[in-house]
């Protein structure tokens, strides 16, 4: 596509005075020799065929939260026992609808973020700002290339895929209206579609901020930065940024640097905006993931809280008021009922906040930077932190146990209170470490005990020691790294890529996540991480005092741990899988989604792990990976997403593929066995990860390696050789050499027969020669 444009920096005549005028007609894209694939900017139904292929093998299993539909005034409608609602919907379609709704919400959150980011950066730096993802990254935006069919060269080029995504999101969401879509598979197809769009939106947001804000451009050695409560210097004024949009936090850093004050004020963050603050400047601190939000706010350490968008506690204002912390809302998504002070002078806003106004809405990042810094300096040391007598509060506890019932993890708070009432705070301190920080326990306490605050007070010493190192988000995976690992991944000699992503709603201690990651690091899988999970991976030290990030290099390579960055950086994990198809296998990307997803499903042994997935964004992220052919394992709380995608290993007909060599049909091993699976325990997850890295295309050497890990982990955690081992062995050459005798006995008992190893595809059109397909 071509266009034309002109720019006038300054023009003054008798008739007119112009400054900074830029006119663009049409679009500027570099000529791109790659042939356009069949589905550039696919509509809601363009990839429906691919979705149905997936859904035929990986059928949705629904676990309704609720028997009812409450979405229109026909209702409430009871959908239990096969009953239909007044609109005609049944419980299966209703669950598909809820799933689609969740994925739309998730995609909208990333889309809103991307729109804010792109508009802001174009306004500030210009539409011609080049897309620059670093010297070793030529495939700068694999998802944009794949889905939109364009190769963006400048910030302005991001607008077209952004508008496309917004349109698809609108169509997808509209299907949830009463009287629209009515069948569960089509709800699922739309959920897969909007979640693919979500991946596009995440990439747009991160490509924009990497290019314009100077973030790491795929650097495996991105700096190790501070994370944890204990890393915050409480002697300084403290500004806490919560959310996902780094723009206002970056403006704070700019203001401090411009005024030579950066050493005088502490800038810290919670959730993904914290990742991005350290990508903007390594001097920023990360308090921790979402689970630390209420705990940290309750300490009253922060003088000012800046909220941007996503994952901010909706009661942040009242929580901040408990310690007279000022709140600045900076985004149209979260206004908190605050007065809009955008047009007011900084002096007036600061004056009001010092006098005790709870907060202000300021929709101008630069103004936020100035106000936040000045107010933090004024408030620091002046605010009175409320003293808390733990023993006195604990004595109020009646041991009713309602807090345990409300607690996600049924933590034994009454026992902790009983001990604390006698002066022993040890159990409360232990509970603090397991607490997800939701605060629901307090809501049901008839004695109004501030339980979360008590936990924090009891764990003071533990908190002081919370000081770790995390590698700042590196952004994209370099093309050179993909060239190095592409072949061993596709052949199976690197046993898999494991991505730890998502929220901190863990079933137990976050230490489980660290244990899982280290098992696969030690086994030389490629381990990558993003978002809150990437933070939690940093929050345990080994006996030598090192975190995983200090022990393992940050490359995208076997035995390495790469932190790609915030939630929107998840796009780089999907991007890495896409780049394997493009850079290693030379498959065309441009508008060629189905073929690339088919390639990844059959060849790239990648598994996502969202052990504490909580949000709608996590739902759309997982579903987006699923459409791309990447399975995701979620923790037990993930059952509350109400839908899994499960294959049936016992149904051989579900595992038929085309052999692309001659078009014949052949059965392959049932892996990945699931697209979305809920594991009950850490042990089950670990074994499932190893098993789901198996791919039909593995070479015999690769399959040997993958099976060796699967068998070994199965023995280690379950105490036995896997029952289903035989179905993963295609020829004797697949058997790990050291286990050959043992396994051959098993195979004989199961009357095992060798199978063909095909060039697998689910797409008939990719077959080179058509044969008998009876």
């Amino acid at each position, binding site marked *: 596509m071509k266009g034309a444009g002109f720019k006038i920096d300054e023009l003054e005549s008798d008739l007119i005075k112009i400054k900074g005028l830029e006119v663009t007609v049409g679009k500027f894209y570099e000529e791109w020799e790659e042939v356009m694939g069949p589905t550039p900017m696919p509509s809601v139904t363009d990839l429906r065929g691919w979705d149905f292929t997936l859904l035929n093998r990986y059928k949705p*299993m*629904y*676990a*309704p*939260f*609720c*028997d*009812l539909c409450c979405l229109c005034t026909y209702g409430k409608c*009871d*959908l*239990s*026992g096969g009953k239909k609602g007044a609109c005609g919907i049944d*419980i*299966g379609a209703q669950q598909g609808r809820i799933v689609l709704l969740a994925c739309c919400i998730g995609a909208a959150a990333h889309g809103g973020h991307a729109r804010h980011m792109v508009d802001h950066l174009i306004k500030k730096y210009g539409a011609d700002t080049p897309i620059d993802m670093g010297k070793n990254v030529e495939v700068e935006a694999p998802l944009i290339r794949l889905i939109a069919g364009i190769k963006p060269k400048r910030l302005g080029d991001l607008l077209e895929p952004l508008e496309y995504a917004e349109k698809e999101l609108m169509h997808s969401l509209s299907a949830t209206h009463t009287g629209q879509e009515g069948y569960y598979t089509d709800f699922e197809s739309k959920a897969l579609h909007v979640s693919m769009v979500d991946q596009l939106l995440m990439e747009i947001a991160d490509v924009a901020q990497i290019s314009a804000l100077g973030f790491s451009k795929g650097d495996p050695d991105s700096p190790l930065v501070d994370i944890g409560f204990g890393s915050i210097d409480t002697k300084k004024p403290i500004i806490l940024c919560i959310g996902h949009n780094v723009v206002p936090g970056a403006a704070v850093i700019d203001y401090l640097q411009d005024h030579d004050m950066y050493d005088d004020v502490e800038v810290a963050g919670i959730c993904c905006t914290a990742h991005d603050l350290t990508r903007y400047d390594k001097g920023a601190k990360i308090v921790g993931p979402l689970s630390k939000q209420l705990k940290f706010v309750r300490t009253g350490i922060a003088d000012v809280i800046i909220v941007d968008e996503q994952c901010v506690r909706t009661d942040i204002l009242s929580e901040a008021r408990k310690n007279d912390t000022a709140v600045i809302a900076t985004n149209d998504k979260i206004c908190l009922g605050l007065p809009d002070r955008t047009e007011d002078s900084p002096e007036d806003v600061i004056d009001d906040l010092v006098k005790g106004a709870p907060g202000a809405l300021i929709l101008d990042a630069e103004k936020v930077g100035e106000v936040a810094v000045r107010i933090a300096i004024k408030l620091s040391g002046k605010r009175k932190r409320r003293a808390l007598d733990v023993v006195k509060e604990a004595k109020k506890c009646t041991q009713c146990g309602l807090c345990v*019932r*409300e607690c996600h993890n*049924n933590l034994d708070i009454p026992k902790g209170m009983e001990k604390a009432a006698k002066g022993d705070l040890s159990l409360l301190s232990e509970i603090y470490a397991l607490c997800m920080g939701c605060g629901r326990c307090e809501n*049901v306490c008839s004695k109004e005990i501030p339980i979360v605050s008590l936990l924090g007070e009891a764990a003071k010493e533990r908190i002081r020691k919370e000081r770790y190192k995390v590698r700042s988000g590196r952004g994209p995976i370099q093309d050179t790294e993909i060239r190095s690992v592409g072949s061993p991944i596709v052949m199976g000699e690197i046993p898999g890529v494991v991505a730890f992503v998502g929220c901190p709603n863990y*079933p137990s201690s976050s230490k489980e996540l660290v244990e899982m990651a280290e098992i696969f690091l030690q086994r030389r899988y490629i381990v990558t991480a993003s978002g809150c999970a990437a933070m939690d991976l940093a929050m345990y030290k080994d006996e030598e005092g090192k975190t995983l990030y200090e022990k393992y290099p940050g490359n995208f390579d076997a035995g390495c741990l790469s932190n790609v960055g915030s939630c929107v950086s998840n796009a780089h994990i999907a991007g890495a899988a896409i780049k394997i198809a493009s850079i290693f296998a030379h498959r065309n990307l441009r508008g060629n989604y189905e073929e690339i997803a088919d390639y990844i499903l059959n060849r790239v042994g990648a598994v996502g792990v969202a052990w504490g997935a909580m949000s709608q964004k996590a739902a759309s992220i997982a579903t987006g990976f699923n459409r791309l052919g990447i399975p995701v394992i979620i923790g*037990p*709380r993930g*059952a*509350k997403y*109400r839908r*899994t995608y*499960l294959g*049936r290993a*016992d149904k051989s007909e579900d595992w038929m593929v085309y052999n692309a060599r001659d078009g014949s049909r052949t059965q392959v091993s049932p892996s990945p066995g699931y697209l979305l*699976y*809920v*594991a*009950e*325990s*850490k*042990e*089950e997850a670990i*074994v*499932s990860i190893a098993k789901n890295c198996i791919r039909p295309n593995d070479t015999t050497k690769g399959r040997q390696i993958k099976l060796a890990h699967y068998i070994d982990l199965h023995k280690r*955690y*379950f*105490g*036995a050789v896997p*029952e289903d081992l035989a179905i993963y062995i295609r020829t004797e050459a697949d058997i790990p050499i050291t286990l050959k005798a043992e396994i051959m006995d098993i195979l004989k008992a199961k009357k095992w027969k060798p199978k063909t190893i095909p060039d697998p595809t689910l797409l008939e059109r990719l077959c080179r020669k058509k044969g008998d397909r009876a």
Partner: protein
Amino acid sequence: MTIPWFSANIPGPKQAKVVTPSMAAKIMGKAKRKMMICGSKIDGKIQKHIVDLSKEMSVVVAPSTLKNFSGAGFELVAKGVVEVTNLLRDETWKGFDGKGNYDLVAYLGFPYYLESQMLSVLKHFAKVKTLSIGRFYQPNADYSFDNLREDEWEKGLEDLVSLLVGRK
């Protein structure tokens, strides 16, 4: 009406009938094809009941607990609860013994919320009847124990086993 252990876990008008151990034993006794599905939260005390109940029904355990059952003297299947629940909703499934799907499944030893969701799958998408014999009321089951103190629950399991298997 019994309030679910998580008070917000109210699914709708159709909620489990609360049963005593003796009622649960009768329900289990009448079932022709019954199976017990056990989760990861199984300790030694519960394990002995599972071993006893295995004389009366098929048992599936969470893979992570398989080691604990080695040498228990009965055949069991180790499978994740999500996978087993998925199989149960297929009427044509042949069961783990090849004799067909089951008419009653009992759940025991799971995180509360996970069991609730699995019971919801079967409530809406399967014909099999469900019985929860965990410590807390599960509204998505067909039949469930009430919310019980730990000692009440342990005694309840003892009574159930003795009524069904005859162990004292």
